[in-house]
Structure formats: C-alpha cells, structure tokens
C-alpha cells in the first residue's frame, strides 16, 4: 500500500472515529433527556407503580440522567476532540467500543432498577457492580482515545490521568466496610474535583477552536497552569486522610485557588488574537460570546456560595451551561463541517444556542436568588419550604429557564443526530 493510500485510509478511520464518538456523545444527551422524562413519570400517580422500581425509579433515573448529561457527554466530547487530530485511530476505535459498552451497561442497570441510588457529589452512582464496571469502561475508553500522540490535548490528558489516579487511590484507601453513602461520597470527591480541571481544559480547547486561535506562549502557560493545578491533588492525597475533613476541604480549596486563572488567561489570549479577525456575528462568534458570558457568571457565583442551598446548583448549572454552549458551537461550526455533514445554513443553530445559553442563565439566576432566600438544594415539593413570594418566583424562574434550556438542548440533539445518522 502506498504512503498516499495509507494516509487516505487513516484519515477515513479518523473521520469514522470522530463521527462515532460524536454519535455516542449526542446519544448520551438524548438518553439523559429521556430519563428526565422518567423523573417526571416517577412522580406521577398510577404510572410510578409500573416503573421497574416503582417510585424509587426517580432517584435511579436522576443518577443516570446526571452521569449521562454531565460525565459521559463531556468525556465523550473530549474523546471526539482528541479524534480530530490523533494518530492511531485503532486505539480510538477500541476506546469507543469500551465506552459504548460501558454506557449500555449503565443504562441497562438503570432500566432494570438494580442497585441503590447514591446522590453523592460529582459522580452519583447506582450501587451495583455492573454500574461500576460501566463507569470503568467509559473511563478506560476515553483514556484510550486521549492518551495517544497528536491529540493536541496533552495538558487535559494529564489532568484526566490525575483524576483517574485520585479515583484509584480512593478505592485503595477507603475501607469497604465504611457506611456506603459516606464511602461513595469520598470515593468520587477527589477525582470528581480533578475532573473539573478536565472539563475546564475541554472548554478552553473549544474556545480556541471556535476562534480559530493558534497556540501562543500565553495559551501554553494557561494549559500548563491547569495541569499544575490538577497535579496539586496528588499532594492532597499524600498529606491527608480521605476520611477526614481537611482532605475534603483541601479539594474545595483546590478549585478556589487553582482553577479560575487558566480559563481567564486563555480567554484573554483568545480575545486578543481574535478581536479584529473573528466575525463576531457568525455562529462561532455568537457561541464564543455566549459561552464566555454564561461561564463567567457561573464562575463568579462559585465565589459566593451558601451552605446546602440552591446557590450551589446555580453555580454548577451555569458552569456546565458555559461549557456546553462552547461544545455545541464547536460541533455545529467545526466538527460537522469536518465530517462533510454541516447543518443547513439557517437561523436555527443560532436560536438553538441562544435558547440553551439563555435558558441556563435564567435557570442559574433563579437558583441563586432562591438559595439567597434559603431554599435547600436537591429537594422537591413541600420539602423546599417555598413559604414566601420571593422563593416562589425564584423557583418559577428556575423552571422557566429549565424549560427554555431543554428546548435548546432538544433542538441541538435533533439536528446533530439527523446530520450524523443520515446517509448523504
């Protein structure tokens, strides 16, 4: 086989890998949306009794909804990004297969109603061996896609390695006989925090791609600081007992002190480079600005949180919203065109990003105001104690924002799935 035909073949597999990772990522979002519907059904009298585990299905569906729409979506998008330039598509395709099996396993466990739900922070789980196998396969599959030459994501790959190391160390250091809720919370606390460095690296890369930004000294410094910050988790593991309070608080400090600077530096660098060059009225420019706005407001809220109230979900919904807007823009403006499957030029993608980003902003704003008034997080119905007009209106804004954001999400999933599946 000539060098040229080998190159053509490798490019073919690279594009196949990219398309399949995108399919898995968007399918995970679609399933997460379906499970959100399941959340509503699990609270509907009559219907809740015919679900696999009755009313308890609410918490099980909630767990997998969060895992698919947060961890699986972001990590598979990271793998998709890695696939665009990486060597060895075989390794990526192997990783894709592992991740797809993992996703299928977790979904099967959820629908079968197996395992107790644990709403621990960052990576909630169903306490069932097959669910953990599924999570492990997704983790390994993404590692296979990320840890190869040519991805251009070395710093993010390093952060991902530190996160996996933190999970592994926690498994080793936390005795199996601990109370399950406490053990699962501590098992995913350290690595879960470090995964936020991975997610931040992902959005930083997406900003660069949206702006057509070439690496500079400042952008390299930003990614270097990101990797350094994630590495600090190794010192936390060496210094503290994972069952203690200092260990838990050290990870909170890690995000406070080490995470904000890298995205700020990168955004300044991208803005300086793209200020005159980028068409800010284009879809890419629109997505970049929307992502910065939502991300910055969410980041700011992170420095003014309460304890156990809805200001915490306000912060993370806005952060995730900012990341997702950038990823949606990257898929629509860059990745689909690279696959020769661009969305038809119309106003729909612009509306979609606006609805999603605007909805997330409203959602987060409502949560923040409700939290200031003392509404507890992760509660529903009478437990929320909505005993004032201010609380009622705030939570109404939460619901309105969620509805608008969901509409934007459905439009995104619909148009991207249609482009990925259809034979042209």
């Amino acid at each position, binding site marked *: 086989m000539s060098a040229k035909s080998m190159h053509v073949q490798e490019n073919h597999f690279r594009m196949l890998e990219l398309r399949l990772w995108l399919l898995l990522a968007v399918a995970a979002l679609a399933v997460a949306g379906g499970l959100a519907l399941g959340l509503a059904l699990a609270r509907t009298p009559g219907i809740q009794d015919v679900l696999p585990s009755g009313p308890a299905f609410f918490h099980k569906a909630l767990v997998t909804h969060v895992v698919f729409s947060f961890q699986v979506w972001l990590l598979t998008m990271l793998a998709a990004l890695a696939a665009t330039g990486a060597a060895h598509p075989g390794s990526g395709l192997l990783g894709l297969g592992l991740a797809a099996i993992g996703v299928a396993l977790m979904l099967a466990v959820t629908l079968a109603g197996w395992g107790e739900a644990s*709403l621990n922070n960052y990576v909630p789980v169903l306490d069932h061996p097959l669910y953990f196998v599924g999570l492990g396969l997704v983790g390994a599959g993404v590692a296979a896609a990320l840890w190869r030459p040519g991805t251009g994501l070395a710093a993010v790959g390093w952060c991902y390695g530190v996160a996996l190391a933190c999970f592994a160390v926690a498994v080793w250091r936390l005795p199996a006989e601990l109370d399950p809720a406490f053990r699962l919370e501590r098992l995913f606390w350290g690595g879960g925090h470090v995964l936020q460095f991975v997610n931040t690296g992902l959005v930083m890369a997406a900003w660069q791609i949206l702006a057509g930004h070439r690496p500079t000294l400042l952008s390299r410094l930003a990614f270097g600081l990101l990797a350094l910050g994630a590495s600090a988790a190794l010192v936390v593991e060496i210094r503290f007992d994972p069952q203690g309070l200092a260990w838990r608080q050290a990870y909170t400090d*890690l995000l406070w*002190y080490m995470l904000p600077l890298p995205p700020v530096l990168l955004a300044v660098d991208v803005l300086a480079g793209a200020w005159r060059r980028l068409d800010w009225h284009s879809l890419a420019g629109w997505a970049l600005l929307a992502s910065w706005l939502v991300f910055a407001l969410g980041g700011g809220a992170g420095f003014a949180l309460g304890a156990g109230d809805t200001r915490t979900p306000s912060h993370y919904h806005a952060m995730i919203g900012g990341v997702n807007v950038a990823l949606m823009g990257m898929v629509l403006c860059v990745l689909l065109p690279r696959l020769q499957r661009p969305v038809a030029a119309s106003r729909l993608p612009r509306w979609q990003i606006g609805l999603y980003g605007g909805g997330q902003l409203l959602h987060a704003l409502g949560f923040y105001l409700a939290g200031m008034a003392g509404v507890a997080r992760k509660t529903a119905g009478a437990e929320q104690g909505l005993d004032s007009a201010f609380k009622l209106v705030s939570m109404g804004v939460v619901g309105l924002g969620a509805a608008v954001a969901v509409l934007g999400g459905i439009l995104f999933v619909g148009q991207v799935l249609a482009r990925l599946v259809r034979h042209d």
Partner: protein
Amino acid sequence: MAGLAFLALAAWWPGWRGGEQPLGQAVDPAAFVAETEAFATRHQAGQTVRPPPGAVPLLARRFEFWPPLALDPGESYRLRLMAQDSVHSVAVNGREMLLVPGHVQDIDVAPGDQLELRCNEYCGLGHNRMRLKLY
C-alpha cells in the same frame, strides 16, 4: 521546571496549611444515646424539647438532628453533638466539624445567635432534609 513549579505550589498553597481537626471528646456511644434520650424525656414540651441553659446533648442521625429543640434566644447553651449511625457534619459560623459515632463535638450558642444546624457531609438520599432550626 515543572517539578520545581510543583514543589513551589505545594509549599505555597493555603489548602494544605491547615491540619486535621480533632474529632472531639471520645465517649461510649450507647451511653451518650441513652443520656440524650433521658434528657429529651426530661425536658419535653409538646413536639419539641425546651432545655435549660447549659449543656444540651444532641444526636445527628439519618436524616435529622434529634431531639428537635426550642432554645431561648436570650440564653447561652453548649450543644454536645454525636453522630449515631454514620458520619455527618455540621457547619456553624463558618467553622465545620465532622461528627462521627463515639466522639462528641461542642458548639457554644450565645444569646442573640440565630443558628440552624445543617448536615454538610453526604449521608444518603435524605441528606438535604437534615436540618434543625434551634429557635
């Protein structure tokens, strides 16, 4: 270069300046539970317990602080908390303390304080319900 930066970070970062906080006074868990139950019975006033100023034993357990209290806002108390079933925590005036079975943590309540106890360590599906208004 990266190694030096890492060492500098380890030395500088405030996150690892603080050490582990003490878990509180070691006690016999069963005896403390019995003491709390007897105290609650003695000072029961309707649905809540109205203790006299001074030490008030309290249990943290899924998903409540027990017994429910109605303190006098003009008096001083020392809440003595122990976790009964698993690990919980409580944050008061910006200071968090871990609650574990077999150890008692003290919280001083001064006249005029407006405290609410909230569990701050995930302890199960009802974790966010685990709150106690003291007045």
